[in-house]
């Protein structure tokens, strides 16, 4: 039983169900469905965890298109926590968005108080589906103005900027995330990746080599290295170091001193080779490590 609880708790805290492959999603759904409907959840969990599992089951059913199931769970949660609960409001708006369309959901979230972060986020998402990116970004900017300590919103803003090709702004938003969650090694790696893409876009814009490109690459290495400092043998970080130092080595007549980066290239190669050799990572990470080693 502990394993089932662990799987569900993990899915809930990491929101892994948003990015799972269809088969994995299906198996998670089956585990959760069985656990909730057999009554095992109600028997073995204290209330706080039980309602977390219900919330997870709601998300799984709504994504799987099981609207009646989702509606039943929503009714249970509403009975327990009342309509004005923050989280129930979020679930209701998602339910309306999925089953009755964005207009109904928009009507619902407009009736919620202005201080409710969760439903404000839903409102912005609904507006996104009907408007262009620029409008989406301006709405997000208003939100982070009012809730500057919400890391998730800054991260969403960064991703919206990156999609629009505004990498400098995206990097700024990611730095804000780091101020709030300084140990987030994945965000450090993401800053590295964004800097790298930024350097490529600068290069594409001006055919000649410039100091700005070099600075972006140096910054990318710095943040990739920070990510492997925070998470030992982080394949994403080492792969980033490898790719970026290779790019730096290809620069003709560099302005800064690049000898350190040559050494870093060797270090990154050795670390990745060692990770692959000792199978010291998850399957997908090993595959990416092999790919990067082959191409760079």
């Amino acid at each position, binding site marked *: 039983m502990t394993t089932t609880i662990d799987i569900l708790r993990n899915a809930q805290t990491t929101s892994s169900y948003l990015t799972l492959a269809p088969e994995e999603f299906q198996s998670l759904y089956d585990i959760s469905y069985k656990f909730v409907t057999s009554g095992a959840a109600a028997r073995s969990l204290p209330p706080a965890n039980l309602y977390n599992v219900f919330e997870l089951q709601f998300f799984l059913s709504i994504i799987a298109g099981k609207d009646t199931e989702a509606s039943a769970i929503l009714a249970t949660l509403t009975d327990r926590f009342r309509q004005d609960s923050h989280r129930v409001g979020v679930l209701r708006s998602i339910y309306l*968005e999925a089953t009755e369309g964005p207009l109904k959901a928009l009507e619902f979230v407009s009736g919620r108080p202005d201080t409710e972060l969760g439903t404000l986020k839903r409102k912005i998402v609904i507006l996104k*589906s009907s408007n262009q990116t620029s409008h989406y970004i301006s709405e997000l900017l208003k939100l982070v103005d009012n809730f500057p300590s919400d890391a*998730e919103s800054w991260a969403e803003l960064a991703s919206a900027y990156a999609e629009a090709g505004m990498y400098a702004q995206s990097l700024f938003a990611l730095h804000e995330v780091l101020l709030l969650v300084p140990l987030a090694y994945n965000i450090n790696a993401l800053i590295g990746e964004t800097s790298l893409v930024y350097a490529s876009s600068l290069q594409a814009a001006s055919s000649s080599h410039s100091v700005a490109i070099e600075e972006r690459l140096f910054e990318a290495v710095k943040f990739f290295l920070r990510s492997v400092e*925070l998470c030992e043998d982080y394949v994403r970080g080492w792969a980033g170091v490898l790719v970026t130092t290779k790019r730096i080595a290809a620069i003709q007549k560099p302005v800064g001193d690049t000898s350190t980066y040559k050494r870093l290239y060797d270090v990154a190669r050795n670390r990745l080779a060692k990770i692959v050799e000792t199978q010291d990572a998850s399957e997908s990470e090993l595959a990416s490590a092999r790919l990067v080693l082959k191409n760079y």
Partner: protein
Amino acid sequence: MSFVSTTVTVLSLLLLFHAGYSAYEFSHYLKHLTVNSDATVPLDIIAETIVATALFAFGQVLGAKQLEPVSFAKWAKGLEREGKSPFAFLERRPGYMNVTKLRDEYASAKK
């Protein structure tokens, strides 16, 4: 708890009990002595108590769970491997999930 650790712990508790009972017997014996004596607890009882306590501690340490890494980087590595990164939500962003798209993807995968 492993078999060895349980055995050692039980043994140490028996020893400790034995030492305690011996001390009680000794005090009883002293009461019946008519001559005034400044006899203290015999050395073997003291030794037995010390050995029992040490054995108990040893048994408990043997049965301890797998220790968690102290260094943040090592701990993060373990979590990352099991897909339990506490920072993953920053890139998945459940609050901004696009429910219509997720439903469409699921429905098309089902076909």
